């Protein structure tokens, strides 16, 4: 599929940051409003689809580096694992930050509350975004064989 015309490109240039901001909002407020790491990450990956559709494969090939994305995905997983091990003295996945942490233990309903939930949301959001973009790019950038 080749790239689209000028109108689509301009609209996409304006829309992609908005979708990104909206996705980040969903990730950051996962413990307060509907949504969370996975939904936000998938929404931002939707911006990736829009980019791919509007600007075409060649532009995507310039901006997409597989090693970077796969390393970021691994980092997201490691952050999730590390946060879940914080309360290891009690049990694996013990929410220590909420019960007796230095921060993230405010009143329920504020942004800095709920213990490790916001950190996990960020980690999962990063992981889902990079992962879905990698999967899509792997399928879209797959070159047809040499005839």
């Amino acid at each position, binding site marked *: *599929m080749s790239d689209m015309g000028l109108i689509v490109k301009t609209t996409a240039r304006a829309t992609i940051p908005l979708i990104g901001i909206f996705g980040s909002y*969903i990730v950051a407020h996962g413990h307060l409003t*509907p*949504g*969370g790491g*996975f*939904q936000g990450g*998938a*929404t931002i*990956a*939707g911006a990736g*689809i829009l980019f*791919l559709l509007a600007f075409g494969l060649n532009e995507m090939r310039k901006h997409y580096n597989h090693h970077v994305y796969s390393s970021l995905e691994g980092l997201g997983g490691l952050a999730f694992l590390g946060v879940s091990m914080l309360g290891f003295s009690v049990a694996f996945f013990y929410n220590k930050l909420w019960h007796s942490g230095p921060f993230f233990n405010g009143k329920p309903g504020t942004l800095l509350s709920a213990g490790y939930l916001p950190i996990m949301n960020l980690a999962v959001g990063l992981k889902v975004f990079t992962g*879905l973009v990698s*999967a*899509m790019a792997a*399928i*879209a950038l*797959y070159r*047809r064989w040499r005839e």
Partner: protein
Amino acid sequence: MNVLGMDALIQFGILFGVLISAYLTITFRDLLSAAIASAAMSLLLSMEFYMLHAPDVAIAEAAVGAGIVTAVVVYGIAKTERWEREAP
């Protein structure tokens, strides 16, 4: 008509749409149309999830079912072929 009956009626309509688009998904011979019908099914299903008071699932289903799945299947069609062949 009270609120409950209204709610049930809306759900009935949405579910009817879900069934129709699922039927279209499995009967279209044009795979691109089938993919679009599957996206429509996901979108209607996410509305139904919203009606059943599951907003988290609704957001996820809309983002995944109408976005990622359609993109992946459409690119898969682009790499292979578009028409489901007739039975010999």
